[in-house]
């Protein structure tokens, strides 16, 4: 096997320059899915009639189908919806101006929403009921109690799972080349195809992904330690 190391060295910075696009997908998908996930978790925990059944079916549906299918479905029906929205709002843009990255973001946020809502739901359930009552007893309103007392504790409990979700999301972005978004994997596929060196191209992005996700995991671990300080009500923080 004669691996062309020059090619790898040459390709590495080239692929690395497409890192912002991957990160952009991750960032937007998180921005979309985090609030929606929190709302879905709340609906599930509070057992709001009607809505909670819909949310449960949605969660089951998304968990029961592969990501690749979500991406294709969004890519197929997305343009119709966007065109309709544009028409009703009287935008002058056409669907063809919409970047493909939008479909990748939507498809990835479907899955991420579900995992985040499940994580937060477990976090909310792990917070003791007494905390909420304590909040009311000192005169906080319902919203204040939730935002200041219950939610921060739930977030700390859910943090490790959310970290896993982010890692899964980054891994998922590699599929967005299927809707012709040129991110890391897409770029490697193009260059590998041009020079007929698929193996080297994929070897390069293999390393890029290891560096990227390894860094993200280290950051998450550090944050986990930081947030974990408040886990026991601060009583162990001093020791």
């Amino acid at each position, binding site marked *: 096997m004669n691996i062309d190391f020059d090619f790898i060295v040459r390709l590495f910075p080239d692929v690395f320059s497409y890192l912002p696009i991957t990160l952009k997908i991750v960032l937007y998908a998180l921005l979309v899915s985090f609030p929606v996930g929190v709302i879905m978790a709340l609906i599930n925990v509070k057992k709001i009639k009607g809505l909670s059944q819909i949310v449960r079916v949605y969660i089951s549906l998304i968990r029961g189908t592969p990501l690749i299918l979500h991406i294709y479905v969004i890519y*197929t029906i997305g343009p119709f919806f966007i065109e309709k929205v544009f028409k009703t709002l009287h935008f002058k843009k056409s669907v063809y101006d919409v970047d493909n990255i939008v479909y990748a973001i939507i498809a990835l946020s479907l899955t991420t929403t579900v995992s985040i809502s499940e994580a937060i739901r477990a976090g909310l359930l792990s917070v003791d009921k007494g905390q909420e009552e304590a909040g009311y007893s000192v005169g906080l309103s319902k919203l204040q109690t939730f935002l200041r007392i219950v939610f921060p504790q739930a977030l700390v409990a859910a943090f490790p799972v959310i970290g896993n979700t982010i890692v899964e999301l980054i891994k998922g972005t590699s599929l967005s080349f*299927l809707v012709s978004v040129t991110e890391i994997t897409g770029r490697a596929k193009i260059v590998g195809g041009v020079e007929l060196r698929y193996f080297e191209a994929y070897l390069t992005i293999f390393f890029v992904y290891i560096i990227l*996700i390894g860094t993200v995991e280290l950051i998450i671990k550090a944050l986990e330690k930081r947030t974990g300080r408040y886990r026991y009500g601060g009583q162990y923080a001093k020791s």
Partner: protein
Amino acid sequence: MQRVLRSIIGAIVAKGKMSKHKLLRALASIYVSITRCTPSIVLLFLVFYGLPAVLYDSFGIDINGIDTVFFVCITFSIFLGASSSEIIRGAYEAVSKGQFEAGLSVGLSEFQTFIRIILPQMLKFAMPNIGNMVIFMFKEGALCYTIGLRDVLGEAYFLSSKEFNAYSLSMYIALTFIYWPITIILERAFGYFEWKLTPKLSNEELTTKLGEEA
């Protein structure tokens, strides 16, 4: 799909051994973290394009004509080897050491103790995770269409391109209703196994036990 599943079992055994040896632990943890850090599609492409070349150049084995399923099996074995080793390690640690010693003390050999005492208990702890893993695998299996394997998704894609992609949406909906029920069935089945494996006490046993404690 079944072939893939079969290869998981091989990986489980290999990795289970691996995590017990302390010398290999460092190597194993590097392997686990690397597979955690790679998207499955990248590994799939790497195996698909790299393996034939490596095998041909270093061993002179020509596997160009081989079925694509082979590559899919290898990729997912690499992946699931990592996750199943973690599951098995967790389950092994969850079973208390006293169980092993108790087995030895009544005269069972080490192997017998493992098979009859430790393994059933390990299974109970590992079942939910194994279920998750199989479902995850089942969904990731859809990726193998990207290297040209005609599985459910590949076949559907082939059929829809015969019709010039006119019915692609209905094809995707049909696929949803293939994947969704199967996942639900798998979830239920593993839930049932888990319930079966949990030791249940009858009412009499429970009262005597409570009486002893009181």
